[in-house]
């Protein structure tokens, strides 16, 4: 009897799982939705969006004729981050260059710059930064500061003295931007793919009318949910592993943690996203509504997950909400596994919330599908 029961369940479930997989993989459009955006985003995020400042243009208004102002100008011109130095001869010219966004910052050295230095005092120069590009501007100021400090120590003819404060960045000593972004992307891309696949799944069947067909068959609501979870889980896992492999081998991000701790976390993460996706799908009447729903939930979720801005900087209420977003927890796990060899206990601290979210969202999805029968 028990064996009969098992085979019976398996047969029905198997038929549905095959159906779900085929619906995603046989449709050129859904293949595109599933696989194209992750690859595109991987390229865009890693190459196009970077916080480092490169190829900056700087204007120099040098009113001094002394040695040190030329030294300063030469060092700026030689700096790696600088693309071109504009030499200007009056304030108006300088203002115009910033106005037209030709330069991001301008150096203004007064006529007494070299004389003050030679006299043993401090040479003063003014840096004018384009505040419209505040982030890149600040970084540029930092670079210029370093150059000025070097000029200063050369002027005192002292051997290069160690600065009083030495900053050392742990886990990413050179602050390589990609080390941070690429592992996080694996989470974000899997998040969107799994959300999309599942958000469309019930809505598509409802549009076709096959959902009614499914509901009158002997299959149970739980089986429907399981059948829709499995393919999304499989495809999400494949995508996630591809991203992780790309990070480790293509971009050379050091993978210091345990793969065997990361994998189950990835599965739990996808299961919790699938639950959210199915909830969206259960309340959508059409695929269009489902896509709208997925974006309405997905975009704020990514913004609040701690990918772009630290969760700790958000107002308390939003921090609580962020705890309900699967991505928040998975980002901690994936960043930690890549860069800081996160120990099992710390990973566990972030996986149990994932398990809770998965349980709650999948249960709610089941109940929503059931209640839509009313």
């Amino acid at each position, binding site marked *: 009897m028990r064996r009969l029961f098992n085979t019976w369940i398996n047969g029905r479930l198997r*038929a549905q799982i095959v159906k779900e997989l085929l619906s995603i993989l046989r449709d050129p459009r859904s293949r595109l939705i599933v696989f194209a955006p992750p690859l595109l985003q991987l390229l865009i995020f890693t190459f196009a969006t970077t916080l480092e400042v490169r190829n900056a243009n700087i204007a120099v208004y040098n009113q001094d004729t002394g040695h040190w102002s030329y030294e300063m100008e030469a060092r700026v011109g030689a700096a790696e981050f600088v693309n071109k130095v504009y030499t200007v001869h009056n304030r108006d010219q300088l203002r115009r260059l910033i106005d037209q966004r030709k330069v991001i910052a301008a150096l203004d050295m007064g006529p007494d710059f070299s004389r003050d230095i030679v006299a043993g005092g401090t040479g003063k120069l003014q840096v004018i930064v384009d505040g419209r590009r505040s982030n890149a501007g600040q970084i540029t100021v930092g670079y210029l500061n370093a150059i000025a400090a070097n000029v200063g120590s050369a002027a005192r003819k002292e051997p290069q003295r160690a600065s009083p404060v030495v900053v050392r960045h742990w886990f990413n000593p050179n602050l390589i931007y990609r080390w941070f972004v690429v592992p996080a992307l694996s989470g974000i891309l899997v998040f969107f793919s799994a959300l999309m696949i599942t958000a469309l799944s019930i809505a598509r069947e409802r549009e076709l009318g096959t959902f009614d067909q499914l509901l009158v068959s002997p*299959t149970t609501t739980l089986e429907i949910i399981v059948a829709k979870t499995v393919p999304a889980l499989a495809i999400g896992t494949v995508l996630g592993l591809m991203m992780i492999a790309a990070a480790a081998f293509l971009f050379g991000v050091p993978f210091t943690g345990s793969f065997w701790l990361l994998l189950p976390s990835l599965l739990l993460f996808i299961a919790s996203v699938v639950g959210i996706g199915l909830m969206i799908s259960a309340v959508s009447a059409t695929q269009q509504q489902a896509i709208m729903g997925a974006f309405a939930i997905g975009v704020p979720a990514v913004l609040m997950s701690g990918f772009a801005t630290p969760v700790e900087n958000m107002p308390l209420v939003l921090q609580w909400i962020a705890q309900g977003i699967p991505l928040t927890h998975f980002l901690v796990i994936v960043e930690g596994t890549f860069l800081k060899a996160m120990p099992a206990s710390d990973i566990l601290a972030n996986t149990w919330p994932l398990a809770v979210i998965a349980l709650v969202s999948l249960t709610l999805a089941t109940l929503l599908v059931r209640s839509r029968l009313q």
Partner: protein
Amino acid sequence: MSAHPASNTTRERGKDHPAVIIDSVAKHFGEVHALRGFSAEIHYGRLTGLVGPDGAGKTTLMRIMTGLLVPNGGSVTLAGLDVVKDNDAIHVVSGYMPQRFGLYEDLSVLENMRLYAQLRGMNTDQHADIFESLLEFTRLGPFTQRLAGKLSGGMKQKLGLACALMAKPEVLLLDEPSVGVDPVSRQDLWRMVQELTDDGMAVVWSTAYLDEAERCESVLLLNEGKLEFDGPPQQLTDRLKQRSFRLTGVSGERRTVLARALDLGSVGDGVIQGDAVRVVLRADAGREEINALANQVGAQLESVQARFEDAFIDLLGGGPGGTSALADRMDPVKLDSDIAVSCTDLTKRFGDFTATDSVSFEVRRGEIFGLLGPNGAGKSTTFKMLCGLLKPTAGEAHVVGLDLRRATGAAKSQLGYMAQKFSLYGLLSVRQNLEFSAGVYGLEGASKRERIDEMIETFDLTPYLGTSPDALPLGYKQRLALACSLMHRPPVLFLDEPTSGVDPITRREFWTHINGLARKGVTVMVTTHFMDEAEYCDRVAMMYRARLIALDTPDALKRDSRSDQHPDPTMEDAFIHLVESADLEDEARTDAKAAA
């Protein structure tokens, strides 16, 4: 008197000329030939029916006539203008109402009309008279402030018609105006079109309902892109004089009699008509065979008037045979109880709106039971509660003695369900669809393979196994849907509008299977809006405004509506009669309430 405020000068000038000249027009979309090159003329002051099953090319021709499509060959001249060269002018002289008229559902009736007037470049303030006459003409006056989305199907069509008439067209093209419209509103549409043609306008009415052809003055009959007939419908039915017969007095055996009749070489077509069987003999066939059959089964044979549908089927070489290979393979259904489906005081409310209002009935085993009614009457809601897709607000529904809301998987496998528009997985191949339905009903291993092979053989699906259901011809799509819903041999079969949008020949094949299944004891629940299809049912439940207004055999319903006006009423007449008396009753009740 003028029903429409259009000026008649242009029409009078052109009256001697045809309104539309179709000259060997051809159109293909890729490999699909929608129109295969034919010529015809459409005249002013006449209602011309553009008749044919779905996919015959009606809409393509309509869109070419309005200049929305460019033909691949030939030409069309409308009101003296070439539809390609004078494209801009075409939109001024023609009015076009597509299948789904582009009404803005969130705008009111009046706002929709204003919008269409403005799109035509009319100043809405100066044309109050046009609005008034159109509202009076369509009888939409009391509803000007109602949102278009909240109108009934019939009222939407009337509003669409009003918008299409805004530009005072010389030629009015209506693409399937009667789809989704209840018989009462349909009468209204006919009346309006009649007034327009009396006024000199050329009106083209395209339809897949062949019975509507008989109401047109002239008919263009299309099938698979070819013009099969051009002329008054009477001319076509006259060819079938003395070839249509009715076998009466066979009530208990009528399905067997029909099957035997259809298998006769001399019979080209046949259907169930209430308690009788209606047959059409092939051209040049003698009456001997059918006489012999009538004698054998003790039936009376009487000659009846030919219908347009008879003529259409005859033109295409007759319908399918009477034997269902599917039913032949089935074992007779055994059920413990004689009642297969029952419901008591079944009620469903959505908020304030009552979709089904305490409906009760019982369906016997092996019965074909029809739920009939206009869109929005509550038949779909009732149907969905019966098969467990909706939870009743009050009352109970049982299938084979089980409440499907609480039923286990085993109980659910007692019913088969075929949803409207053949719900198949378009992304899966035909074979994968069959395997899915077998799997989801728990079939496994050898029995699964056997059952699938059987369905493939019965329905001739072998050439299509690798294709997507979306690419199948309509008839095969229907076969596949039926195969999927019968894979697990259910004793009760639910069919939701199974033949909407299907050509008459495919419809006959479908009913051959259903008749065969019923003879094996399968109980069939069917919803339909084809009035003549109701005649195939053993009993019909008529629904109107959420209530069950009548429940009887088709013959009894027709008999009850007999009047001096309609001595031999059709199902449609019976329906209209029932609806009108239900309305009268409602009025009487409100009056009584007001008096109290």
